[in-house]
């Protein structure tokens, strides 16, 4: 795009790819981690909070009540972490996720499994940190509780809707 620096509507965040949310309702690249929330396969009231730290590739996974995930190991991760990586790739694209986590070379990665295989070579298990991610997830959900409004927000002129690959 010409004159990107002079554009008031320069696209900064690429639009996310749509994905189904039933298994992994929340994924984000934030705080230096790929982190998210994975629904439990057996208990509808329970979710797992899973995270992979960029660079060090420390893995963590525990329930929202801070009980450690029984399946987690440094050699394989756990099924929640595999789901998290898979859905992150659907949402952001494999290259963006790999680059963020510093799994290299990022442009040769094509799936969540690829990413997990590469980073498990240097992964370690870490405990804790789930409370922050869980509260970010709750804050994320709270946006849907905001009532729709018929009053104009002129500032949203700066935020045109765009389709994936549209720019």
């Amino acid at each position, binding site marked *: 795009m*010409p004159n990107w620096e002079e554009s*008031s509507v320069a696209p900064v965040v690429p639009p996310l790819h749509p994905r189904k*949310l039933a298994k992994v309702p929340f994924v984000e690249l934030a705080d230096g981690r790929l982190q998210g929330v994975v629904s439990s396969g057996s208990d509808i009231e329970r979710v797992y909070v899973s995270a992979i730290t960029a660079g060090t590739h420390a893995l963590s996974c525990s329930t929202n009540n801070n009980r450690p995930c029984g399946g987690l190991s440094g050699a394989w991760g756990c099924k929640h972490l595999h789901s998290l990586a898979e859905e992150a790739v659907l949402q952001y694209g494999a290259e963006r996720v790999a680059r963020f986590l510093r799994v290299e070379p990022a442009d040769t990665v094509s799936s969540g499994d690829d990413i997990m295989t590469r980073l498990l070579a240097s992964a370690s298990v870490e405990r804790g940190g789930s409370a922050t991610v869980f509260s970010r997830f709750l804050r994320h959900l709270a946006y*849907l509780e905001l009532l*729709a409004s018929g009053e104009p927000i002129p*500032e949203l002129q700066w935020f045109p809707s765009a389709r994936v690959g549209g720019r």
Partner: protein
Amino acid sequence: MVPVCPGWGALMLAAQAKQLLDGEPEGVAEALEVVSGFDDVLVHGLARVGEAQSGALAAFAVALAACPLRDRVAEAVEKVRAGSIGDEHLMALAGGRTALLGAVHDAYLGRLDAALGRTRATWESTGSNVEKESGNLLAGCRSWLSELAITGWRGVGHDLVEACGNAIQAAYAEPKLRRLAVLLDGLASELRAASPTATMEHVPVRRWADLWSRAMLLSQPGALSAPAATTEVSGRLLILGVDIHEHETAVQFQVHGVLEEAGAQPRLVRASISAGKTNTVSGLPLWRLLLGYPQMLKGLADHSVLELSAMPLLPSGDLVWLDDRAAATPEAADPFATARVLLAVAVAPPVPPLQRHPVRIAEPVLLEGQVLEGGSIEGGSIELDPGRLPSCGPLTPELVKSASSCIGLLRWDAGRWHVQPIAVQTLVKKKPVTVHNGQWALGHPDPKVAKASSGAGDTVAILRERAGRLLRK
């Protein structure tokens, strides 16, 4: 219904496009250069004002020497150069920058009105209901904005981005501050995605300075008071089309239409409905956020004429949309017929002084016939912008390229005019069709697609279910 007049004036003709493009309005290039100099100061941060930035600030003060903000801007520039900056100085700088871009806006909108022969009502200073509340909330927002300005876009890291969390949450909790909350949230999510910004190849210099300045203005006490002069209107709303605005946590459907009131000249109005969302809600599911607005959805999907009774209207031409004061009638109004007949005679609304910025220019126009040549007009000097086609509608770059007629919003950005298509007429399988942004407001016509976005594919319902189980524990 007003008498039908020959529709030519509604069309954007080659001659009008020429007039629009005929050189820069006087003073605009100079004003933009001063703005660019100022914006560069924000890239480096007010704590790192070198010789070039110091010169840019001096030029900024000179450019504003004839406006009422003169003394405050001059003082602020002195303070920045001396390295002692307070809130009030940042406010003066944001105000000065806003005044410059306001002048650019006025020059281009004036040019547009002259080229299209559009009549625009004049702004009458109304004053507003000043309520000085939420002082602490606003101070929290200003303090983050100050921190950003002092650090500069190149120095933003995770800690600085996350430092705004509480201020934004608090602003969301106060409905009167919604505009500010939505704006800060949009800026924060871009900074989050880009941080650490030191490694960015290019910084969106103009854009982030725009967002910062507007946020600075909105976080002044009284800036978000309700305007005093809301009137109520009754009549028929004929929809031209819908423009969709979206960032990670907000969406706005901005409907452009012509309001016909008994005994009055038809006028251009906008109606905007916004909702909170998550970044995972985009595309078709966005419409699900408007379930509380059935009349508007029907108006969009079926082109129904909407009968308004006592709908509030702001002096800016923005309806404050209360869906129970609108009724979708069985009568359909083809948006192209509306555009052909009414665009030439409808009176455009004035723009409130604090909203004057080139980004707000979004004037409905009709393009037809020879003026459209494979996705551009006037030999490519005004392009149909395929970058603003929303994720929740059927318009694609291919459809736009093949259009024989187009309703679009004429916009100005980064030194160019372009048209954002919101509806097109084209041939699909040799049959003439109208394709428009609001087409899927009541659901996708293909049962397979509709089914895929229900059940496990219904993102909004799934997240609400999760929220129901986890949020209120």
